[in-house]
């Protein structure tokens, strides 16, 4: 297996007007690694994630995906996006399409997969996220947890090299969080490379290889789950933890 990291971020900066949302951030994610990003709101976690598949275009620095440096070329961006799965806080399922159609859209349109093959793949993925019976339902007929699991299946259908999760459980009712986290844990166990913005400490403890703490657009500390709870180094991280932990 080659040693190039799946994601390599070098000196990335992103401004919104006067606000430095991401300020000179560098980070590498290795194949099979699960990295959880935590930090107060407005610390640039989501922006960092969205720069990786170019939903935001950076102002400075470089990002390479599996050794390929992101440029402004539309074709290359689309090609990269097809290899980077993304799960959103608000699910963003397509409400006019059935669950099955939501999942098969990407493979059919972007990869030119046969309809039948795409549907077989979709059924397999639905079984994997635990809702095989919902293939013909519309998103609005599903609970939030089920919708998010469909969204994960939709991203997996592209057979991505890495999955990005942007606060996947923040919009969910408490009792639905676990079903989504379980799916994510399974993915992590299977060796999927994952970059997760989330404050679910249970998930971080169980699955994360590294935890990145961001504040004011910068990475303050990179640590392991064990050290995070026992020996946080920076004062800012200690304060943050004291606020989010019960």
């Amino acid at each position, binding site marked *: 297996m080659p040693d190039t990291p799946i994601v390599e971020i070098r000196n990335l900066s992103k401004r919104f007007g006067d606000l430095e949302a991401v300020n000179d951030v560098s980070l590498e994610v290795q194949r099979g690694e699960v990295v959880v990003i935590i930090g107060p709101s407005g610390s640039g976690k989501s922006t960092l994630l969205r720069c990786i598949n170019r939903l935001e275009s950076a102002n400075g620095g470089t990002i390479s995906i599996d050794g390929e440096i992101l440029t402004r070329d539309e074709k290359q961006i689309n090609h990269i996006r097809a290899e980077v799965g993304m799960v959103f806080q608000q699910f*963003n399922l*397509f409400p006019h399409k059935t669950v099955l159609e939501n999942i098969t859209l990407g493979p059919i349109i*972007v990869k030119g997969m046969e309809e039948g093959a795409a549907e077989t793949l979709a059924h397999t993925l639905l079984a994997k996220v635990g809702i095989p019976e919902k293939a013909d339902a519309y998103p609005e007929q599903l609970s939030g947890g089920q919708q998010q699991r469909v969204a994960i299946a939709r991203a997996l259908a592209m057979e991505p090299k890495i999955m990005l999760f942007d606060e996947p459980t923040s919009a969910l009712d408490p009792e639905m969080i676990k079903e989504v986290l379980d799916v994510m844990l399974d993915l992590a166990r299977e060796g999927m490379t994952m970059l997760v913005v989330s404050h679910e400490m249970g998930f971080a403890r169980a699955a994360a290889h590294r935890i990145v703490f961001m504040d004011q657009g910068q990475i303050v500390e990179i640590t392991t789950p064990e050290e995070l709870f026992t020996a946080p180094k920076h004062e800012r991280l200690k304060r943050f933890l004291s606020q989010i932990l019960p």
Partner: protein
Amino acid sequence: MTSQLESEAPRPHTGVWQDDSAAIPRERSLMIAWWIALALGVSFIVGAVVFKPDPYSEIVRFIGDGLVVTFQMTITSMLFALLLGLLAGLGRTAPSLPINVAASLYVEIIRGIPLLVQLFWIYYALSKFLRLGPNLSAILGLTICYGAYIGETFRAGIQSIPKGQMEAARALGLTRGQAMRHVIVPQAVRIILPPVGNEFIAMLKDSSLVSVLAISDMLRRGREYASRTFAYFETYTMVALVYLLVTLVFSRVVHYIEQGMSRQRKDAPVTVMHRLSAVVVDFVIVDLIATPIIAAMRGLAVTPAMTFTLTAAVIGGLTAAYLLGFWSKRGQTPGMMSVGLRLVDAGGSIPSIGQAVGRLLISLLPIPGLSLIWAHPTLGAAPLQDRLTRTTMVRV
């Protein structure tokens, strides 16, 4: 959108005022008013024709020809206005500045000039450089004017789709164009269907303006009749009533489309009115598709009978393709979709054979569209003149 419409969901039938303190539901008072207007309009026309056939039955036949022309003008213009409107709407939401400015310029200029002035300008002023016939001028005028309004409707529809939809599509690797085509526009179409239906009704009424270009639409036919017989009251009353009836029918259809947006895939009761509305929508859509084909084929036909046969063939073929295409793939036609009906109920429960046959039949009803009616040899351009002369000779 959903929450606003959900408040209009059908209420239990326990009398008109179940609770004195509650406001009368807007939906109910509108429905009552609709039935009263319909009943008054129909009974007046029928009564007049039956009890005073002279001059009413003649008026009805006379302006009946005009009604066909009115529909012809409206449907043809609507087809082009929808295409132009889609372009304008996409242009107004395009990321490129020049395209955006061009689309905005079109919309701003056209919306600032009254339709009647536009029609005069195209027919009379433009003739200094380019002489267009009255029909072409009328269709062009209606198309350009309504294209601007429908364009704004499309823009609003596209912009009402949450930003996350485009992001989710792009994140899968779809291009902007693919995302528009597969994700944004299909959702926007559902949202703009009711306003576009209202534009259709508005255009149907505004098409009376083309009578100034000497086109024999309903108003023009009425004017011709009245100026020869001096029966102004009788004629214009009939013209007004026919416009009213047609508009009433379509406004109800738009109402069910509005309702359908919220009842889509939900288990709300389905009435005959819903099914009839689906029929009317399919009817108009088949006609929209058939109109340019038939227009192109006019040149082939030598006799009126041949025109009729060709039209029937086109409409029949289109209808079959339309129904089979949508049923086999989606279990519902666009008309059924627009009012929220499915052949197979949501959740996949299969209807009984009787139900299924009934539903199929009622969806089949519409289908020879309006094109077939106006292609019929006894109607259309040639016989109009005869009948006019005949009337003139008898009356004057």
